[in-house]
């Protein structure tokens, strides 16, 4: 038995100082041992971050207060430790990496100095030794040109590089415990893969205990030794990785796993001869950035993109962040004007007609955005939001509202939701409302730009199911944009793979996602975390293939 590094016992965290306040964390117990990675999973808001912040002693003062239980680090109680002692322990004994690499570093201090601060605060080393040690650490996290990066400001580094800096900063004093709170969620799959490997390697070298927080089951399968599942502040289930994935004991865990879409494309639907409703021909978009000094920068965000979408079908656009997916979507919906190329909507060219002439065509193509929290005006009732489109096209207010009720029911919300405001709904519910709004105009084409990316897997599954159902019922065509290959595999008939604004591969989903021709597509698929595991069926993919073969 190796040493227990972190021992959380029956921890309770409540809101406010008074004991009667609602409990955010309600009696959880977790142990992390040396050289072990414990993955803490659970839906959004389940208390994962609060648990980690409690450990670090970084809970917001006065609002969240640990009211019971204990948190021990190598036998030392943390909940009652003084601020001074906690400061000493941080970085030396326990360190933390946060989710957002973009904002976790101070933008106005060179990254080298930010790491240096740790050494200055906790050691008496002279400047030279410190620098040597930092450069050494930066090499360990496999940063290139360490001298240059040492003196760089964060904004000059990519997201992956920043996250490496964070890791270097966390590990420079070889702490016993590393807490990583969704460290890869904001990164591309390829970068994610690198970071995960890095953490695992470093852990092996330094013998660190890792508490890894994520909601991505793929990541769990990739990295965890043991898994702890949280829900609404309670611990649902813990156990070794294999056990939890193969034989989850709790219903909740089963549901969670079952909701994870499979990378194996669903069985293809029949080819149809339905009419083409949407066509993009050589669509290009160049962003011109004006600069005060020097020449402006030009970004070719979409480069001669051609695609076709038939009635009743779903076309997926996949690709890494920045590959131009959203740009294409926006050009097609004419939220931005394409630089060149054409868009034909139901046979009509709409790429270069004026906004006024465009007006009647708008209703044929509708869009659902990624962020369910910002795509509904918080000051307008749900009903008014949905009815806005029909009213614009001449439907009487009362009729439009009646239609809004019907639509809400269609997307699985009570009809009386019309008079409520968006903030009264969860993320998944809001996304349904956004879909209802898009449907209100009876469009031929629905563009979904990362429409499920922000949602928990279970909710994601529901929304995908809803889209599928609606497509069956109304026969609309869907242009589905996602960076999640799992999602693409489950919903798309055809897939377009984009890189640097260009289409690199295109074809039926089953074809592209199982037998990619292009190296880029292959790399993408390779990097997808947990691709060897078929979560929904509680078995590794290989077994499934073997079984069905």
């Amino acid at each position, binding site marked *: 038995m190796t040493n227990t590094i972190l021992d959380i016992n029956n921890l309770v965290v409540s809101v406010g100082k008074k004991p009667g306040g609602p409990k955010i964390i309600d009696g959880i117990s977790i142990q992390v041992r040396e050289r072990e990675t414990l993955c803490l999973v659970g839906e959004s808001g389940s208390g994962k971050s609060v648990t980690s912040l409690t450990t*670090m002693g*970084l809970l917001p003062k*006065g609002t969240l207060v640990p009211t019971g239980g204990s948190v021990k680090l190598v036998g030392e109680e943390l909940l009652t430790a003084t601020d001074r002692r*906690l*400061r*000493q*322990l*941080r*970085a*030396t004994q326990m*360190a*933390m990496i*946060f989710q*957002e690499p973009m*904002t*976790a*570093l*101070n*933008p*106005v*201090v060179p990254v080298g100095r930010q790491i240096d*601060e*740790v050494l200055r*605060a*906790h050691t008496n080393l002279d400047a030279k030794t410190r620098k040597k040690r930092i450069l050494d650490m930066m090499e360990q996290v496999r940063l290139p040109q360490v001298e240059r990066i040492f003196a760089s*400001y964060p*904004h000059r580094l990519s997201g992956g590089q920043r996250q490496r800096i*964070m890791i270097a*900063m966390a590990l420079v004093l070889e702490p016993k415990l590393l807490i990583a709170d969704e460290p890869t969620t904001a990164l591309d799959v390829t970068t994610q893969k690198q970071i995960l490997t890095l953490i695992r390697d470093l852990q092996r070298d330094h013998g660190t205990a890792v508490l890894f927080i994520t909601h991505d089951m793929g990541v769990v399968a990739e990295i965890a030794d043991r898994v702890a599942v949280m829900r609404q502040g309670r611990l649902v289930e813990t156990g070794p990785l294999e056990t939890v994935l193969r034989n989850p004991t709790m219903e909740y865990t089963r549901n969670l796993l079952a909701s994870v879409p499979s990378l194996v494309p669903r069985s293809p639907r029949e080819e149809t001869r339905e009419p083409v409703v949407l066509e993009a021909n050589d669509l290009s978009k160049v962003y011109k950035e004006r*600069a*005060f*000094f020097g020449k402006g920068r030009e970004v070719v965000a979409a480069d001669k993109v051609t695609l076709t979408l038939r009635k009743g079908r779903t076309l997926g656009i996949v690709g890494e962040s920045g590959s131009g997916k959203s740009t294409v979507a926006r050009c097609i919906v004419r939220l931005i004007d394409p630089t060149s190329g054409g868009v034909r909507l139901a046979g009509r060219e709409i790429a270069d007609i004026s906004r006024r002439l465009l007006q009647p065509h708008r209703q044929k193509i509708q869009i659902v955005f990624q962020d369910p929290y910002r795509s509904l005006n918080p000051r307008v009732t749900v009903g008014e939001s949905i009815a806005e489109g029909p009213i614009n096209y001449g439907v009487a207010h009362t009729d439009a509202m009646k239609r809004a009720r019907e639509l809400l029911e269609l997307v699985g919300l009570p009809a009386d939701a019309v008079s409520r405001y968006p903030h009264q709904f969860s993320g998944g519910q809001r996304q349904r409302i956004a879909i209802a709004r898009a449907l209100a105009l009876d469009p031929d084409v629905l563009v979904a730009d990362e429409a499920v990316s922000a949602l928990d897997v279970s909710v994601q599954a529901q929304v995908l199911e809803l889209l599928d159902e609606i497509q069956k019922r109304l026969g609309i065509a869907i242009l589905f944009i996602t960076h999640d290959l799992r999602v693409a595999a489950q919903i798309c008939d055809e897939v377009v793979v984009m890189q640097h604004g260009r289409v690199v591969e295109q074809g039926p989903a089953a074809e592209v996602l199982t037998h990619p021709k292009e190296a880029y597509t292959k790399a993408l698929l390779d990097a997808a975390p947990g691709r060897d595991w078929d979560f929904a069926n509680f078995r590794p993919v290989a077994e499934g293939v073997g079984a069905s073969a």
Partner: protein
Amino acid sequence: MPVMGVVALFVFLLLRLTPGDPAAILAGDNATPERLERIRTSLGLNEPLIVQFVTWVNKLLHGDLGTSLISNLPVMKMIGQRVEPSISIALSTIILAVIVAVPLGVIAAWKHGTWIDRFVMGLSVLGFSVPVFVVGYVLIEIFAIDLRWVPVQGFKSISNGFGPFFERIILPTCALSFIYIALIARMTRAAMLDVLGEDYVRTARAKGINEVAVMMRHALRNAAVPVITVIGTGFALLISGVVVTESVFNIPGIGRLTVDAVLARDYPVIQAMILLTSLIYVVVNLLIDVAYTLLDPRIRY
């Protein structure tokens, strides 16, 4: 530059299209209409507006601000005589305000929600609510008349030694700083509160460095941009304050020069002054833009 153009045109039109007759002011009593007419002609006020404007702009472009209608002195010289006091007050006010207000704001943000925070904020709101001339009189009454620590009024150039300069500038500076301190302290607090919610502050804390370092090295530096912005936009406020302060403490600065010029319809002086203050404003804000790039490596122009 277009800004200055707008200002120039605006001021010119404002002055010429509103009533007022410098000739009458010049001539004084028993000015017959004929005499007024002759004076106007000799001042060039009878030319068509467009000619006057072109003449003025043309001179301006050659660095000539014209001649005062009233005192017959070159405007450049009049302004030159008056610049030092105003700049002195403005600078000392900004320095004092920053020295006092920034720590206040930082402390208030750090102790957010406590009585210290409320006290500092209350004080700064108070600073907003008292007219600067009232503050001025009270200061004079206490420190110059009752205690006799400093002279009541006037200005001594710093070339006469720091002592005389300082004792005359300290009261106006304090009076004027009042509102400025209030403004900067509030802004500092708000900016600090924003920054304190940022991820990198949490990161800094997670490193185990002490709170002072967190505040100064991480938070304040990032809060500096909005604070500096407010110093820049507050500059207009400062100019207003300078005008009043110059009256209360009888400081021969450009603020009073302008007020006097407005009252006397001394067009060349008003035009030059408003143009000059606008120019200062533009320059100050340019400097502030430069300061941004120094403070925040992300900002590039």
